[in-house]
């Protein structure tokens, strides 16, 4: 059977779509209005749901400001920020020490929200799993191959562990989630997980053993785990909550097994505070080191920050708008944290609020 498409029809659809596009564009430009300050941000896709909750509320309280946020990924966000394509960036990792030194005194950083990486699993007949960094490191090295390994039995007395091979699921794309997870493995089990294996994209030793599976994005990892019995993996807390995945209790630096929750995440941030910078102008490059595997019996050990990155100098209108945005994010904003994230503790908010005084026209 031949499919007949009339050429004139096709030719007339093209301009029609173009006209529609132009109309929508013009209408959109008109709606955005004049005399209003427009702030543009980009970066972390992890913080996007939270930003989407903050921005409408902020613009409702400040009708003269328009905020746009583009979730391009942390790395791209930082790039665009330094190229002055955007006014602020949101980034999971803070600036590296080198980058901070290059822009020292002109760049402001602040952690604005907390997230957590949870270890989730698909273990038919087993629940309430307890794990530590060493067991996880050995799994992702392919050296702990069976669920009923003696190490697993020791960690999980009373849990029925089958003699089945463990499928270790990890991210196949480069990701801040992987960075936090591998950093935790390194801090909790430095002998098993060397620094070479820490980063946004790493060479997973388990892959060459045939027991590793990579999937793209939190969604991809979630999907593989849900459809694969006897698998284990790591995802952002919000994905585990959204999909009702079981979450493992993880042994923290004080030897306690802790479930991820707003309280245990905030507790980790509170206990990391002694090592945190005291001014938004300081070097934040080691804040993940302070937060991951933080001390304290109630701290969840695989916790991370998302940072805002700003300049100290803006044109007058923008400076005022950004000052207000910073105040909002660190006050009212912390009261409207969406599911899967945690508000930052009071101590850190107090440091962040100093930034409002540092931004000048």
């Amino acid at each position: 059977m031949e499919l007949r498409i009339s050429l004139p029809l096709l030719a007339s659809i093209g301009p029609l779509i173009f006209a529609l596009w132009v109309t929508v564009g013009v209408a959109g430009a008109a709606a955005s209005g004049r005399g209003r300050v427009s702030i543009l941000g980009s970066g972390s896709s992890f913080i996007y749901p939270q930003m989407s909750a903050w921005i409408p509320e902020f613009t409702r309280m400040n009708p003269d400001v328009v905020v746009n946020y583009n979730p391009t990924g942390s790395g791209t966000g930082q790039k665009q920020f330094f190229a002055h394509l955007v006014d602020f960036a949101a980034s999971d990792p803070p600036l590296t020490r080198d980058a901070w030194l290059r822009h020292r005194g002109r760049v402001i950083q602040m952690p604005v929200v907390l997230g957590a990486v949870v270890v989730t699993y698909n273990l038919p007949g087993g629940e309430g799993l307890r794990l530590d960094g060493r067991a996880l490191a050995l799994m992702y090295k392919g050296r702990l191959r069976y669920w009923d390994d003696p190490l697993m039995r020791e960690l999980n007395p009373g849990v029925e562990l089958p003699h089945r091979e463990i499928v270790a699921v990890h991210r196949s794309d480069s990701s801040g989630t992987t960075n936090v997870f591998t950093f935790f493995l390194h801090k909790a089990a430095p002998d098993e997980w060397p620094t070479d294996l820490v980063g946004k994209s790493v060479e997973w030793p388990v892959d060459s053993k045939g027991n590793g599976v990579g999937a793209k994005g939190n969604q991809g990892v979630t999907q593989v785990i849900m459809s694969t019995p006897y698998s284990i993996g790591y995802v952002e807390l919000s994905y585990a909550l959204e999909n009702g995945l079981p979450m493992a209790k993880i042994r923290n630096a004080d030897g306690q097994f802790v479930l991820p929750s707003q309280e245990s995440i905030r507790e980790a941030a509170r206990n990391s505070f002694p090592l945190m910078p005291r001014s938004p102008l300081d070097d934040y490059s080691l804040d993940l080191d302070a937060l991951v595997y933080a001390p304290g019996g109630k701290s969840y050990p695989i916790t991370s920050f998302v940072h805002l990155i700003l300049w100290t100098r803006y044109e007058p209108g923008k400076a005022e708008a950004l000052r207000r945005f910073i105040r909002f994010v660190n006050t009212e904003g912390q009261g409207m944290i969406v599911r899967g994230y945690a508000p930052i503790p009071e101590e850190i908010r107090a440091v962040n609020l100093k930034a409002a005084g540092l931004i000048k026209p």
Partner: protein
Amino acid sequence: MGSGKGAAWSRWSLMPKVDRGFFLSLLPFAAVIFAVFALLAYVLVEESWPAIARFGISLFTENVWRPSERGVEFVRYGLLAPLYGTLITSVLAAALALPLSLSTVFFIEEMAPRRIRDAFSSIIDLMAGLPTIIYGLWGLEVMIPFLRRWVMEPLHLHLGFLPTFSCDPMSGASFLAAGLLLAIMIIPYMHGVIKEAYRQIPRTYREAALSLGATRYEYFRIMTSLIRPAVVAALLLGLGRAASETVAVALVVGNAFNVSPCLLAPGYTISSLIANQFTEASFFPLMENVMFAGSLVLLIIGMVFSGVGVIMMRRVRRIYGR
């Protein structure tokens, strides 16, 4: 060659003035397409050069994936696993798709009633046009669980002594799953090529075979032998398409840097590697260049495959063409 050139020249000189103008007005468009391709090849070579210069031949013979944001001296790449995976999955796909396409062509063209024949034909045409992500999601959600339960586990249980089935099919995402999904995706293309050649077999040949009292099966064998070059062409075009598929494969191949003879184990392909890593690759020294090097290999393989395929098709047309 000389006569060809002369023919072209006499065509030009005999052309009415209007047609000469028409010819010249078309020339830039044809040239643009060729230029785009040349530029593409040039960019691939230029971009992959830093990686090839740094790692040499080991870029294609070692299985290492050690990215680092700290600096160029910390990184190390070897594309053996994705190259191996690309080869295995596309060969598997073409090998599975070929008998299926051949028998479908014969069934549709010779044995099916007209109404069924039309329905079948349009379904297969439709399959070619489906977005590949749909195949990928279907593969992930439907095919893999089914395959693991009813194909992979029995294969491992009963034929586990063979190296190809020696490993436990754990997640189901594997070379086999990718190969099968690719086979389904390339069937419409292979079917199309074979069908075109099949319909060109002169009626006299068919009548001759049938008048000699050939059975349906014998008839099938004679007809297939008549279109052998088209079958080879279909195979090569299918291989080329399978090697270049990205999204769908990324969902079902397992994305693990693994070189294993076992088809039930997860692996990687060049295209799925690019689909997974390219967005953030610029933050890792040399990673982009390594991916360009991988694409260059794909381009070369693809050019060889479709080149041979086109030559085969031409031969078919020369034998049976009108």
